[in-house]
């Protein structure tokens, strides 16, 4: 009789401990989700004043010989001025075909458009100001085999909460360049850590690329963000390929001495 009571009490204690541990983990995730939710805009922390300058001071990727051999020049497919030569003042030239996005959900590295993070129980949805979004699964699922992923700009992402930070793992990205001299293939793993500062107004995303075929050591850098004001709202990016102004030429003006 005493043994039975003891066993039952022990089982209850263990169950209670499990429930407490689960609730504690949920609180941590809930706190992280509450902090991360909302609109964010990327900051120019180096004061460079240009997109190229934003990453100019990042530590360059350390590549393996095979990785270095993969690097190819990158070109915007919408760029109709591939030689990038300087144009004389008064010489008109066309810079774009006027090709609008057409359904893409954006890539993994945010640009100047605002970024919106919507954390829910099973998924964190990250959206911008146009179509689609990144679907980051937090329900414990694993990546499907690479053979079942169509490589794309957002890849396949799963995530977990770690002390209030969202830690995202992504594979299945299209082959191409990575910030600060890196390269990626569908096999490459990208880990992103979303960390919101204690003030709740600033966020850092730390990107870490790992692929033993490409990188001699993990390639890591971070972007800083500022929270959008509480009364702000998402804009809607509009682009019309049928508008001739999209293909309007540029005429460089005379430069002041």
């Amino acid at each position: 009789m005493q043994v039975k009571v003891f066993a039952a009490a022990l089982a209850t204690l263990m169950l209670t401990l499990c429930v407490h541990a689960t609730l504690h983990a949920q609180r941590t995730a809930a706190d992280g989700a509450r902090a991360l939710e909302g609109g964010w805009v990327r900051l120019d922390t180096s004061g460079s004043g240009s997109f190229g300058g934003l990453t100019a001071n990042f530590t360059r990727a350390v590549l393996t010989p095979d990785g270095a051999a993969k690097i190819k020049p990158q070109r915007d497919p919408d760029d109709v001025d591939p030689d990038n030569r300087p144009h004389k003042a008064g010489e008109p030239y066309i810079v774009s075909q006027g090709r609008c996005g057409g359904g893409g959900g954006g890539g993994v590295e945010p640009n100047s458009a605002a970024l919106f993070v919507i954390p829910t129980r099973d998924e964190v949805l990250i959206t911008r100001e146009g179509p689609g979004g990144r679907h980051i699964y937090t329900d414990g699922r694993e990546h499907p085999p690479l053979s079942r992923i169509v490589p794309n700009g957002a890849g396949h992402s799963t995530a977990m909460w770690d002390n209030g930070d969202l830690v995202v793992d992504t594979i299945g990205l299209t082959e191409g360049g990575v910030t600060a001299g890196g390269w990626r293939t569908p096999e490459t793993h990208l880990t992103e850590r979303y960390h919101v500062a204690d003030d709740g107004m600033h966020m850092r995303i730390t990107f870490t690329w790992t692929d033993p075929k490409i990188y001699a050591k993990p390639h890591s850098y971070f972007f800083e963000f500022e929270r959008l004001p509480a009364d702000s709202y998402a804009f809607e990016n509009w682009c019309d390929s049928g508008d001739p102004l999209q293909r309007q030429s540029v005429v460089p003006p005379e430069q002041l001495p």
Partner: protein
Amino acid sequence: MKARIFVAVTLIGALTGVAAAQTPNARDISGYWELTYMDSQHVPRAQLVPRVTRAVLEAEAQKDFKAVRWCNILGMPAIMASPRPLDIRQTEKTVVIAAEINAATRYIYLNRAAHISKDIFDPTTNGDSIAKWEGDTLVVDTVGFDPNKGVNAIPGGGFRTANTHLVERYRLLNNGSLLSVRFTWTDPGVFRTPHTYEFRYARLPRDYEARLPLNCDPFDETRTAFLTARP
């Protein structure tokens, strides 16, 4: 004996708590939702005002065709009629609807009681949406549509203009397996009476994997020839 009763009560309490945590929340519409074939849309004909003549409707159809031809973002109400699943995510502050078609994501604000001032808000394909819960029904109120962007056509007839007002009522049915959305459009320049219809979306399994958005290339000559040729 007392110890046994205590243990049993504790166990029942713990298990009840776990079960409660798994009960569907009638006020959480997060998930992947899909219109089913044929039986998910109940759309009566809209009653239009006399000024909406055949010529007006033809002009609107031409605008919509141009938007499709050039892969413009579609906007409301086309996004809600997507042939692909909608990813609806709800937090305390917002409901966000992301589609797998060429439509800008919808942002519905639960933390705002009034629309953005017309002096500030630039009209868009989706408009400005605010919402509140009335019991287990999410009531979404939208204004601020741009009649010159996206596809304007409204199911059942008519089209959206700068003066159009939309109210949507979202409600879970069948223990959370169905999402009913009743759309009511009012616009004195288009509809003689408020135009109401209902869509019902089926909840997809929790392991659903979002697919790549459908691509749209305005410079695809084969596509353009298909769209512009007479059958």
